[in-house]
């Protein structure tokens, strides 16, 4: 095997501070899923296999983003860093949230803890509670979109980006802010619990998900077509596979622009399909409404 390729494939960072939360989150969910499934004698629409697979896949992609060569080589290849960001912003969060994790994680706790935590959460999120009211206004669709955009654009500012590659703790803050704003963004799209906001209709959610494309695309396009390297950190590192700094930046910008935007389009299409399915499931109009003389003479015109 080519020694450079071998070195790339062996570059894993086994971070215990990442592994512990991932293992705990996975273990709590799997235990809770098993308990709920057993309790509902496998008839539940809640504890279904696809949710379990989605959740575990979400955790897997976080692990891949933070432990694998994708993370380790992010300081050497810009496009690896962009793949990492896509995983943290737009792959892992929707997978975790469609699995509706809160209920399963609570059920994954021992009975005593579950009661205590459940009671605490229901008090904290009580409809008359101050915290719920604060949380609801701090996480409206508009606020979340703004936070998501500021996080995405702000961290790609050359000074912030180079600083994140220099200071490990800042790099962790960057990833945490991407993941958290991603979770808040997809919380509105998926409608996962806890549901504290007024439920937005499917059309509203489609518009919201599509609203993520312009900032993402503008950033990707501006990087893909920049004539000079934007991030100076990469100019001093060994190049892998003969890819120059500027070509690496173009590939990274393209990844952000095309596959990045595509994820939101796919999510919008899923919501459109759901919308159409809802229309299909509506009961047909009674014959007395559509078969009257006027309606047949001029269909679509109200008499």
């Amino acid at each position: 095997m080519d020694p450079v390729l071998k070195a790339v494939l062996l570059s894993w960072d086994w971070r215990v501070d990442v592994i512990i939360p991932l293992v705990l989150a996975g273990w709590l969910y799997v235990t809770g899923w098993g308990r709920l499934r057993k309790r509902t004698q496998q008839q539940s629409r809640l504890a279904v296999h696809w949710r379990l697979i989605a959740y575990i896949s979400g955790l897997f992609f976080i692990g891949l983003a933070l432990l694998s060569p994708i993370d380790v080589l992010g300081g050497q290849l810009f496009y690896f860093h962009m793949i990492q960001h896509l995983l943290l912003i737009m792959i892992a969060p929707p997978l975790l949230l469609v699995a509706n994790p809160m209920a399963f994680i609570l059920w994954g706790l021992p009975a005593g803890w579950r009661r205590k935590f459940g009671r605490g959460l229901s008090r904290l999120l009580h409809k008359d509670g101050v915290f719920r009211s604060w949380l609801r206004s701090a996480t409206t669709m508009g606020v979340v979109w703004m936070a998501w955009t500021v996080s995405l654009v702000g961290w790609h500012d050359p000074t912030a980006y180079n600083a994140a590659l220099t200071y490990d703790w800042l790099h962790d803050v960057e990833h945490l802010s991407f993941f958290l704003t991603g979770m808040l963004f997809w919380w509105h799209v998926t409608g996962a619990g806890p549901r504290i906001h007024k439920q937005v209709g499917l059309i509203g959610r489609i518009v919201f998900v599509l609203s993520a494309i312009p900032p993402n695309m503008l950033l990707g396009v501006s990087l893909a077509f920049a004539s000079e390297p934007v991030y100076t950190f990469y100019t001093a590192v060994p190049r892998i596979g003969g890819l120059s700094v500027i070509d690496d930046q173009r590939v990274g910008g393209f990844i952000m622009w095309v596959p990045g935007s595509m994820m939101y389009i796919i999510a919008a299409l899923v919501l459109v399909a759901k919308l159409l399915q809802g229309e299909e499931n509506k009961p047909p109009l009674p014959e007395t409404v559509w078969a009257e003389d006027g309606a047949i003479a001029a269909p679509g015109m109200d008499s």
Partner: protein
Amino acid sequence: MKRFLVGLLVGLGLVWGARPLHAHGGGEIKIAKEPIGPYKMTVWMNPPQPQAGKTMHITVGVLGEDDAPVLDAAVMMEMTDLATGQTILSRPASTERSTNKLYYETDFAAPDSGSYEISLHLTTLDDVSGQAAFQTEVEPAKNNNWLAVGLVGIGVVLVGFLFYANRSVRY
């Protein structure tokens, strides 16, 4: 559940204990593409503001033709106290010690605060040798353990939450 949690924590503790053997890499660029014969050397130091007695990592990238990574060179790090002119540390940097296997890394701790010169000696398979150096200030050790602060913070929030959960409230 308790057995699982204890097993998990012990296992991860062992992983954690083994971890300092591998330097993490990254940090501030101290030397950028310094030519040594036909090769170039880039050096990072992490953390950018080292403290006496605390681990610091030196990461070295060796660039060959077309800036491709060179993986079969020998890199030796030396730390010289600028006040006395004496070399106080000398150790190899290697790809085995690094997280990013395309870089050479070594980790060590400066015994005291003060001004130091860190020099990196490169010898390649085709007998090219040379060195690059930079100076750095090592600050006195500060006892702010952010990990402990973070864990205590999480503990306080958890205890507060459980207290809140169990208090009697009438709606």
